[in-house]
């Protein structure tokens, strides 16, 4: 089954995540692991009001497709969805969803961890923290 890889400006709400889960899960899958990155209200000792994400979309989607391909090659019979939202995000909203479906749970957990860790360290996406008294592009 082809992987789902996308950068979007649309809200990644519970319904959108559910659609991803249903899309990657086949009748042979016993484990579906979903990671959601969520915007939190504090970072580096400061109160965060909102976030802004920017992306080099063409390259980011290509890198994400590569990650999905790596996952599917390394964990047999796995199917991956990687969706990252960009634009302005409010506290509590989901910035990234990684869903991996596998025959067994061990592989699903490992593959999901690998996918999000690799996304964070390689995909050209940037985050700006907006505080009450300023804003800053931050790493990590």
């Amino acid at each position, binding site marked *: 089954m082809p992987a789902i890889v996308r950068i979007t400006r649309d809200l990644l709400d519970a319904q959108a995540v559910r659609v991803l889960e249903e899309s990657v899960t086949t009748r042979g899958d016993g484990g579906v692991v979903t990671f959601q990155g969520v915007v939190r209200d504090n970072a580096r000792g400061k109160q965060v009001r909102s976030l802004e*994400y920017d992306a080099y979309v063409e390259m980011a989607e290509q890198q994400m497709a590569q990650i999905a391909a790596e996952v599917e090659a390394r964990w047999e019979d796995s199917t991956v969805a990687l969706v*990252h939202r960009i634009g302005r995000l409010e506290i509590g909203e989901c910035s*990234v969803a990684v869903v991996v479906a596998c025959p067994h749970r061990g592989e699903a957990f490992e593959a999901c961890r690998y996918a*999000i860790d690799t996304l*964070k360290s*390689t*995909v050209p996406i*940037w985050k700006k923290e907006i505080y009450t008294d300023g804003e800053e592009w*931050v*790493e990590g």
Partner: protein
Amino acid sequence: MRVHVRYFAALREKVGKDAEDLDVSAGAMVSQARAALIERYPQLASTLAGCAAAVNLAYASAETALNDGDELVFIPPLGGG
């Protein structure tokens, strides 16, 4: 030759534009393009020092050779996820 530079995130804010063309000498490498940008925008020096580079959608090194029409992007520290 001419390469097309695109700006994102902190770089876009500092330069005030999304993209522009940059003239570099034939056979120039990424390092020379970086130097040319710093000459044009001295205020970018410290930010660019912390950036990776990508040519035509793939990560590149300082020694990667550029070709006419290439798309060059300097990549500030990542914040995805």
